[in-house]
């Protein structure tokens, strides 16, 4: 039963992170390269808003708010929307940081060889930025995985809820059951981070890491990131 719960937790986490990435990447790019007015008038307020509201509150607002406007969202969907968008906003900041730490010379060089601004972002900056974003992104993975336990509040039978079922059925194995749940969460986080580490290594470009300004080998970097 706990394993079924763990599977549900993994499903929730995967979808939340995917939604988060789908929101976070465009947001992050717009944040750096979009018009200033967009950043000040739209993006910054959104970021402040989502940073300032606890995920649980957001889940409740989406769950009950949707039914106010006649939309019947299941608890599963509502929690993915809430935590997914919340994570997307955080991920946009990760992407923004990563883009900003790609040397500005990269952009200059790309423009110098005749690429348009968007082509340069698309083929030069983003590929490098995503590599830089992976380590902080694995933090986000661990955070979302653990946060997915909040979905229990909307009646999603994830790992913690399955744990509660067992405690209720056996009348007081609380400590044991919750310890096992903790162990399962730990293993999931541990394995996920190991996997992300592997991905990081797999895509790493030899000799390339967070770029100081005015670095050498422009040409080589351009080649390898194509």
């Amino acid at each position, binding site marked *: 039963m706990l394993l079924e719960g763990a599977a549900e937790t993994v499903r929730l986490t995967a979808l939340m992170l*995917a939604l988060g990435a789908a929101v976070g990447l465009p947001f992050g790019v717009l944040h750096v390269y979009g018009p200033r007015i967009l950043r000040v008038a739209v993006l910054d307020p959104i970021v402040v808003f989502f940073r300032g509201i606890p995920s649980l509150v957001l889940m409740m607002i989406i769950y009950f708010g949707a039914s106010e406007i006649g939309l019947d969202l*299941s608890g599963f969907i509502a929690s993915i*929307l809430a935590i997914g968008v919340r994570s997307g906003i955080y991920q946009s900041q990760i992407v923004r940081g990563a883009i900003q730490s790609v040397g500005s010379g990269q952009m200059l060089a790309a423009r110098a060889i005749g690429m348009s601004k968007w082509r340069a972002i698309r083929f030069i900056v983003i*590929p490098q930025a995503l590599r830089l974003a992976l380590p902080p992104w694995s933090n986000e993975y661990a955070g979302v995985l653990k946060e997915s336990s909040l979905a229990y509040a*909307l009646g999603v039978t994830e790992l913690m809820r399955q744990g509660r*079922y067992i405690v209720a059925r056996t*009348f*007081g194995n609380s400590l044991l059951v919750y310890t096992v749940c903790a162990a399962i969460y730990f293993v999931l986080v541990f394995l996920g981070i190991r996997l992300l580490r592997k991905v990081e290594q797999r895509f790493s470009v030899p000799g390339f890491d967070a770029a100081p300004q005015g670095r050498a080998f422009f040409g080589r970097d351009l080649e390898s990131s194509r």
Partner: protein
Amino acid sequence: MQGSLKTGLYALAIGAIAVLAAAPTQAQKLMVGTTADYPPFEWVDGKGKLVGFDMDVMRAISYLEKYEIELKDVSFDTIIPSLQSDKYDIAAGIQINDERRKIIDSSEPYIEVLYGVAVVKDSPENLFTVFQKGKKVGAQRGTTQARWITKRVVEQGIDVKLELYDTNDLGILDLVNKRIDGFVSNTLPLQEFVKRNPIRISGVIYDLRAHFAYLVKKGDPKGLVPKLNSGMAKMKADGSWDDLKAAYFTGDLLRITDCNAKHGDTLNVKRDIKKYAADLKGCLVP
């Protein structure tokens, strides 16, 4: 290299959209919400099935009154808001009181429960000493008993500290570890905890009573209250009501998974309620 990274991201995004689009469409049956961690009223057996007194009554009434139901586990805090926002049509396993009557409608109350004070088995504490100066008493958050302790003890100027817990088992754990002196709860679940923990029920608070009922949205837009009442009346008339009560409130609940396996499954409620209730009683009660 970069291509595969990109494809991966697209796949993730499309996957997310596909799942969100495939949100379940609203079925034409009544949704029954309950918080399934409250034996003997409702909990989940070893096969992942919702079992308990309320669950069987809900299944039986739906058969007797000819409607379809779907039982769903909901967190306790969201049950009443969920009724009000039409997420669920009926809430099972909840107490009805004057405060709640203002915001929801309900069937006839079907059971009166008493509240006991659990203390550590070898401690000298009793019903009266746990409510004396300097003692710590626990109760489940948001419940009748928690409110009673606040109103009748703490607000009367007695220096007792009320500790609140999300669930009974966490309170019992603190009691066993002697972090609180007494724990107040519904005697029915408390009896089960007594069997499995070094605690005893030191007494029952007769001033504190509560009634369980099946709740529906205020104004009962779907006309469910008469159906619930007539279904319960039919069950009382044919004896299945008393058999279910005996099975769940006096039986050995740890045997529930085996008993359900032995008698087919809970769907049998719908075939022959009387036989199902009698079989379950025979199996659970030693």
